[in-house]
């Protein structure tokens, strides 16, 4: 059955249905809640109530235009989620961690299951881990001071022509600053400090469809304007940073209005979607028809389909659904040379090198992805979390390796190291009943005393199974049996879920850390199996040593998890944080340490990136990573597709 495009034309209709992410959303359609009974309580941390209307609301009218400052706009720009999101931190404005007057941590807002709860052990964990104190605050600047934003350099002819097209645009400081950054530590730190910006986009445009993009790109070429595509803004590679040396007018091309599912093909199980759609919206809309993509990167609340394509994103459940390159059937993109697309939707072709692979990972240097045809799957009947405790990280890695060897990995399987396990535990909400308390104590007693696991060594693998009920149970048994041969003990669904909770509140937690002189960041790599242990160990040691040498006064937190498994290797995800009290330039120190950590990763056989991308942050290693000839190939493609460097974000090369 082919759906009409307009059926999905508005993602803002609040439909009481759920999509299959543990992240957000809770109102579940009757069909799914029956088939997935577990979900009712196994999504406890994330009650995503109701999508607020994000546009179509006369936002600008409520705001007084600043005097003496002409605001250029065609009609009301639709600002996407900008209105309900923090301008200088992660996520929704109403959701944040804070230490209340009693010194207890709580998570504000109503969006998530954790919202409104107190987390009694977080403060202790925080203070003990970082040597930090809730007395030492380092609060952020509350509002954006327009004087730190350089005035826009507009290309008058371009603006005139753009006006004629009717495509909305803006040159307001808030809009420009919002799209001038991703979520690298240095970017957020600078926003919090209220530092002066060197270069931000000079204007923002909101194309509504593919044809709008074609017009914009044509105009940009005509008037030699620099375009930087903007999707969800969750980049962590400095990819959205404007090159300071760019003298042309920089236009941020915000794809957020291109957020429709244009059609859905149940015969071939594919959907044709506009690339500006945000992950959670895509899932929710598909869920309404009983489908999902299964692509769930940790950023899926905010990141966009086009962004996934442009960075070669990876989802938590890639074991079942594949990474973005496996999910994509067809890509339509607008480049300065014209529109690039294929002529058919054959599931595989032998027609020379796959041109999709020029687009996948191009990081906005070649053009704008406008429409994508991607695989969809029926929503799985049943979903179950699980966890396994291992006495040591080594045993856990050996188990994951075996699971990968037998190709029986569940939708998600992750191995958290000891530090991350404790971190996860620090996020336990107040235990309400004495009984729960008692049961928790009993579990702990069983594992540490009876089984002899050292609480400072043990690690946890978190699991997520999906499929029909019987298969899931069978699969679960297979995995637990393998785990048992490596000394693993099943440790319940709750522990599993808490692990996934951590990955999604981590960015909110970083903001909390930054309120108390702690800077933090994550980075990732992929590495062959035989080097996993050595890489983890060496990178952590390198970080600790570099921190010491650079005068960091407190022991840093270094933690890692094996977050994805493949036939021949794994993806490793690191958390790194430290208390920066006593340092003159914490961000610089942080960057030096991260740089050293990346060198260590490369020296230990790790890749430059598994899914974050290169951006401008890791450009310097590209030549070593893909050889001179490789760089030359990419350059020649860029040279052909975009000789005037219209897509001038200078990522990658």
């Amino acid at each position, binding site marked *: 059955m082919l759906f009409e495009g307009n059926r999905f034309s508005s993602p803002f209709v609040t439909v009481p249905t759920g999509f299959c992410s543990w992240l957000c959303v809770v109102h579940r359609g009757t069909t799914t809640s029956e088939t997935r009974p577990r979900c009712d309580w196994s999504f406890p941390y994330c009650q995503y109530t109701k999508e607020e209307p994000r546009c179509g609301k006369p936002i600008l009218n409520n705001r007084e235009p600043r005097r003496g400052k002409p605001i250029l706009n065609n009609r009301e720009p639709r600002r996407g989620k900008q209105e309900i999101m923090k301008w200088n931190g992660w996520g929704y404005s109403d959701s944040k961690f804070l230490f209340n007057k009693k010194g207890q941590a709580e998570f504000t807002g109503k969006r998530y299951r954790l919202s409104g709860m107190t987390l009694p052990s977080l403060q202790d964990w925080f203070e003990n881990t970082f040597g930090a104190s809730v007395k030492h605050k380092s609060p952020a600047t509350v509002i954006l001071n327009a004087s730190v934003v350089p005035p826009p350099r507009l290309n008058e002819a371009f603006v005139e022509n753009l006006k004629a097209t009717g495509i909305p645009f803006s040159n307001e400081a808030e809009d420009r600053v919002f799209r001038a950054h991703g979520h690298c530590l240095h970017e957020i730190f600078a926003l919090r400090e209220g530092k002066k910006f060197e270069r931000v986009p000079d204007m923002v445009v909101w194309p509504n469809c593919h044809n709008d993009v074609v017009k914009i790109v044509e105009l940009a070429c005509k008037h030699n304007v620099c375009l930087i595509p903007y999707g969800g803004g969750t980049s962590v590679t400095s990819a959205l940073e404007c090159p300071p040396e760019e003298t042309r007018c920089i236009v941020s091309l915000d794809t957020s209005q291109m957020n429709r599912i244009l059609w859905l093909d149940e015969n071939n199980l594919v959907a044709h979607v506009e690339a500006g759609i945000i992950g959670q919206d895509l899932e929710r809309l598909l869920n309404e028809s009983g489908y999902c993509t299964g692509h769930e990167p940790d950023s899926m609340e905010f990141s966009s389909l086009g962004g996934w394509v442009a960075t070669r994103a990876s989802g938590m459940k890639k074991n079942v659904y594949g990474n973005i390159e496996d999910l994509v059937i067809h890509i339509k993109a607008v480049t300065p040379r014209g529109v690039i697309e294929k002529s058919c939707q054959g599931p595989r072709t032998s027609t020379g090198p796959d041109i999709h692979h020029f687009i996948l990972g191009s990081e906005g240097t070649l053009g704008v992805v406008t429409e994508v045809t991607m695989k969809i799957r029926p929503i799985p009947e049943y979903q179950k979390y699980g966890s396994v405790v291992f006495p040591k990280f080594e045993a856990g890695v050996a188990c994951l390796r075996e699971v990968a060897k037998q190709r029986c990995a569940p939708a998600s399987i992750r191995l958290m190291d000891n530090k991350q396990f404790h971190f996860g535990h620090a996020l336990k909400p107040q235990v309400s009943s004495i009984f729960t308390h008692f049961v928790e104590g009993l579990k702990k007693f069983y594992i540490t005393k009876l089984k002899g696991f050292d609480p400072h060594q043990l690690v946890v693998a978190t699991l997520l199974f999906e499929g029909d009920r019987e298969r899931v149970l069978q699969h679960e048994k297979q995995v637990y049996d393998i785990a048992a041969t490596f000394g693993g003990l099943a440790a319940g669904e709750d522990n599993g879920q808490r692990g996934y909770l951590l990955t999604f509140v981590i960015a909110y937690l970083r903001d909390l850390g930054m309120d108390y002189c702690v800077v933090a960041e994550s980075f990732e790599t992929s590495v062959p199996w*035989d*080097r996993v242990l050595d*890489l983890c160990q*060496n990178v952590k040691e*390198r970080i600790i040593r570099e921190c010491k040498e650079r005068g960091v006064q407190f022991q840093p937190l270094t933690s890692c998890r094996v977050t994805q498994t493949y036939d021949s290797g794994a993806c490793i995800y690191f958390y790194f944080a430290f208390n920066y009290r006593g340092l003159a330039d914490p961000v610089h120190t942080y960057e030096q340490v991260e740089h050293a950590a990346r060198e260590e990763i490369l020296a*230990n*056989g790790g890749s430059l990136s598994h899914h974050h991308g290169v951006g401008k942050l890791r450009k310097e290693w590209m030549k*070593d990573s893909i050889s001179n000839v490789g760089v030359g190939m990419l350059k020649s493609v860029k040279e052909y597709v975009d000789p005037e460097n219209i897509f001038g974000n200078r990522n990658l090369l």
Partner: protein
Amino acid sequence: SVSSSFPFSLLDPMLKRDCFEDILEERRNSSDLKYALRCYAPVLYKGVTPCKANMLKNIVLQSDQLHYVINQVSQESGEAPDIIQEEASVILEEMAHRLQISTVRCFAFALSKAFKTLFQHVCVNEEGIQRLQQAIQEHPVVLLPSHRSYMDFLLMSYILYTYDLALPVIAAGMDFMGMKFVGEMLRMSGAFFIRRSFGGDKLYWAVFSEYVKTMLRNGFAPIEFFLEGTRSRTCKSLTPKLGLLNIVIEPFFKGEVFDVNLVPVSISYERILEESLYARELLGVPKPKESTSGLLKARRILSEDYGSIHVYFGQPVSVRSLAQGKVNRSTYNLFPRHIPRKPMEETQSFVNDTAYRIVRLQEDNMVLKPWVLMASLLLQNLEGLELSVLTEQTVWLRGLALSYAAFLDWPDQAPTAKVVSSSLALHRGLACVSGDRVSLVVGEPLGPVTPEEALFNRAVSVLSCASYRNQVLHVFLRPAMLAVAMLHLSDEVYNCFSFLWDMFSNDFILCPGDTVQDFEEACYLLVKTGAVQMPQQDIVMTDIGQPTLSFFNGLLEPFLQGYQVVCRYLCEEASEGLTEKQYIPAVRSFAVKLILAGNLRCYEVLSSDMQKNALAALLRMDAVRKVKVADQVTLIVNKMAVNSIDDILGKNRMISHINQTPISPSLSLVAVAEDLYRDGLTPSYIR
């Protein structure tokens, strides 16, 4: 700017060496038995639990590394893999240590007794011990002691036991295993045995390297081996061997460990137990096979006074820091880590460089006794010296040595005469005072002797004495080569220096590629002591410099003469088809003939060590080639080339007149050298 390019502490104004503690003092005051039985609980690497010898063997036998080679060997030989596996197991059995604390305690008891009888003091720098203790906990540690005596590794283990440090496992030559009982005792005190040569034996190499790496990776125990490969019979440091160093460094390159710490240890003996034994060996009396009965006979030595031992644990050297910017570890990314592979060129040169660096660090911290200075003077005056002159010159030489940062152990309180006389007393087997003349002792004449026997006896005492002089050579070597270049050789000083540097690089520790740096160092040191001046970058000798330069000249004279004799022999006497085997005895009898005829007064050329080094130099300089004919290796001499080397060595040898004109007025030597150095050109390019 000059000094900044020198890597060693030599020129460091902040140079401060640690103080020593005598560990025998406590032994003399408390029960050895209690000491041997005391609680011993060393801290290991990252708190790992020690690994039982059997478990270790299993890890090795089950490793991917070994399996790969077993399959490879099996395919090549057609033998079934389990037979090869069995072979590997036998090799491992023969090799592996069986460290037992009870044996260590026995040794601790016996050695306490022996050390107290043999030595006055056994001194250790305790700060070094503390650094080592720290290092052991943080990283896998490799102990690299200098090797002058059989005592070395027993002594090392004894010291580590004393300080409650983890006992090392020690790579020992298979020859020890011949000593039935003792071999096993050593095994149980941590020695593991390796064959001296196993060139092409893949399986042996695989078992051996995996065994060492397993211990290192897991940090079960510090690994100890001798970079020099064997005991130095001459007390000069030997050119380092790279095999084991390659093995212990590789886990770092492969990312299997975060870092490896190399700890140079300098063991200095005031009197070496094997003193005259070595001299005889160098003169061609074969080395006695290690045997238990031989050891028992050696009991005789227990009745003698061997002075003190100084053991200096150097600063741990981090392989990671050394390799920074020199080796790109990611070149190891594309090859499975368990498959053995020849190290890449970059790695090889790094390991070579590191080995030299460590040996120089060993040299740097060798403790020198006054006798070493006296021996250097006596060897330049074989006919003897007046005691007062010897004393006076020793004092002068002491000043010189100190200004070159020699690690001299000179009793501060005692008057000079006392120092000299007690040194003479300790070494009465080598030098005697008759009247007020001091001269070398010449053998014990037993009945009538032939001229050859007399010559042999004299050579023994010269070579024994030379082994003391050799201990100071590393301090003076570079300025001495410059002095020789200035005094004897042709007009282009840097070229001459570079020629000598190249010529002598088997005899002394000269790091490959460091010619320019060494030249700068030599200039710096001679200027520092006022022996030369460098106006407008010429090198000019000063009045006060004359004694220094002529002392240096005398210091190297035996080497120059020795090499010349070898050249003469090859040009004048050597027959066509001279085999490598015949070479040493032939040179020796050529030299004996010259000495007996009164045409040569240098006895050191009789040393097989010098003969080998000279040949190696000539081979390196392409003046001699080796050709393998059937089973024999024949030496093909390029007489022209050898002759011209002889010429350079011998040119103006008789000049004793030293004038003050600039030696190389036309060339701004140092400037040139520095420029070249800065441009990163190799010294061979300069030549």
